[in-house]
């Protein structure tokens, strides 16, 4: 018996020593970037590698909650992350974000100051973030399938005429935003009663939903598999280019204005490289490539100036002031509300009639 114990002990020790050899050792010249899906032109990454000799390990995620988990898991040391307003705020509050050295990003002056001001809602002293893209959330609809006179209100998403033809976002805050706005509440409410009311509304809607999707919604709309979808403005712009039957509307009850920014997390091992990458992204030709690929509103004034006047006037991609003024930016919530949100969301996803 004793012999066996010793054998097991030895085996465990050997197994543990094996680990030291198997981890991915990060070389000096590597940059690990975490970003939303479909949110950078792959050629930009190649160009950056070619020009600087820095190798980029590029990783993608679907929703901000997804990103938070990936980061907190600590399984990968990220050097640079791009995510949405409220999630940046949460991580700043948790002390997970390093101050950015803007001196190393001289090309940041290409970015419109107005968006740094917008960002003040989550980065009050402009110390941590660099804006990347922004936009609103609205309804992308098929003109042949939807009554256009009704599409100016979130109410249409509860209209029995469109049973089984509606796509809702598969992301907690975005889905609740729709219900909260329809009820006339703030997106950032932490009032349990209001949130439960919103959930009630979403439960009622579930049987009419074609699917809950994030990035794929655009694809389904182009293929005309559904009549309408709640999507980000840029996504709508791209879809409308592919299919002329599609149009976009930001409902009159108001919506969410979001701004996605880069930040440098505490796990960063080479801040200089990260800043080099950010500077590269601000360069006019690179930002233009990314704009062409992503098609969301860019804060880069140099890029916007070069655009075709038609495109500059495209209100789907570049939301006009009056629409933006009717929109709210998502704020990070306290822990109790976040837990409540996950519970309500799980209940919604598990619900069936």
């Amino acid at each position, binding site marked *: 018996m004793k012999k066996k114990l010793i054998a097991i002990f030895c085996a465990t020790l050997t197994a543990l020593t094996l680990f030291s050899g*198997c*981890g*991915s050792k990060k070389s000096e010249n590597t940059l690990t970037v975490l970003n939303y899906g479909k949110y950078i032109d792959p050629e930009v990454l190649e160009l950056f590698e070619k020009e600087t000799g820095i190798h*980029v390990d590029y990783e993608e995620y679907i929703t901000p909650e997804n990103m938070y988990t990936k980061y907190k*898991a600590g*399984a*990968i040391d990220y050097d640079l992350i791009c995510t949405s307003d409220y999630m940046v705020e949460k991580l700043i509050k948790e002390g997970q974000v390093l101050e950015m050295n803007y001196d190393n990003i001289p090309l940041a002056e290409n970015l419109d100051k107005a968006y740094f001001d917008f960002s003040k809602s989550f980065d009050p002293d402009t110390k941590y973030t660099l804006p990347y893209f922004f936009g609103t959330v609205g309804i992308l609809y098929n003109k042949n399938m939807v009554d256009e006179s009704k599409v100016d209100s979130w109410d249409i998403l509860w209209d029995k005429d469109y049973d089984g033809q509606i796509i809702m976002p598969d992301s907690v805050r975005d889905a609740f935003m729709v219900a909260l706005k329809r009820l006339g509440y703030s997106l950032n409410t932490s009032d349990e009663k209001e949130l439960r009311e919103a959930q009630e509304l979403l439960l009622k809607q579930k049987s009419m939903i074609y699917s809950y999707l994030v990035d794929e919604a655009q694809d389904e709309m182009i293929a005309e598999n559904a009549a309408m979808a709640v999507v980000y403005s840029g996504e709508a712009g791209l879809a409308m280019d*592919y299919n002329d039957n599609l149009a976009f509307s930001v409902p009159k009850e108001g919506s969410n204005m979001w701004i996605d920014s880069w930040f440098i997390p505490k796990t960063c091992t080479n801040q200089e490289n990260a800043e080099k990458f950010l500077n590269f992204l601000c360069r006019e030709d690179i930002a233009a490539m990314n704009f062409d690929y992503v098609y969301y509103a860019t804060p880069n004034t140099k890029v916007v100036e070069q655009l075709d006047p038609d495109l500059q006037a495209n209100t789907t991609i570049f939301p006009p002031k009056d629409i933006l003024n009717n929109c709210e930016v998502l704020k990070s919530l306290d822990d109790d509300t976040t837990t409540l949100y996950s519970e309500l969301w799980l209940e919604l996803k598990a619900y069936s009639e």
Partner: protein
Amino acid sequence: MVKKSAERIYLTLIFLFLYLPIAVLIVLSFNNSKSRVYWGGFTLKWYQKMITSPTIMKAFGTTIIISLASALIATLLGTLAALGINAMKKRNQTIMLGATNIPMLNADIVTGISMMLLFVRFTRLGMGTVLIAHITFNIPYVILNVLPKLRQTSKYTYEAALDLGATPLYAFFKITWPQLRPGVLSGFLMAMTMSLDDFSITYFTKGAGINTLSTMIYTNMRKGINPEMYALSTILFMAALILLLLMNFGPSAKREKASK
């Protein structure tokens, strides 16, 4: 006669069920329109796009490296383990085989998560962690293929060779190995197939920037479908077809049949 034609019809229906989806992908891969329904003329542009896409080609390379390396290492470890287990007492054999069954019976998602929890504790996720995870679920397939062959071989021939003055190594390669070879080979192939097709375990153990075809297609599908994926399907299907044809009807397969 009625029975015969009923059988035919049944086979045809199942055949259609199995191949219709694949046929659809193949046809769409030549479609000169992003639409999934309408035919926009013949094109090879998706193939060209696929070959020039760094994401797809990188995932392709990673997949090949991981499945080949994991299958090779698993075959080596597994064959040795089978030799060892075969020499053990009955009770110890049962214990070893019980442990071997754990990754096979456990759900993929549980295996993947358990390995992730372990890796996160002690190291960082990367290519190495995926490789270890793949080797782990590959070894059982090798052992379960080699062990039966080993039990069939008579140990007296081996011992007779030793008595006649052969070194153990020489006796092993002259006597035991030829009988083991088919088992080792099928174990290797099975391991490689499982590794190629795995999604869940890779999904939970992969590091930044590392994608196998499965995880790459998964993220890609969640973002909307690119026609390059159809081209990729066609290529993979053709590769599997050719590989299996060679294995089943190639010269070496014939020789093996003849020797039976």
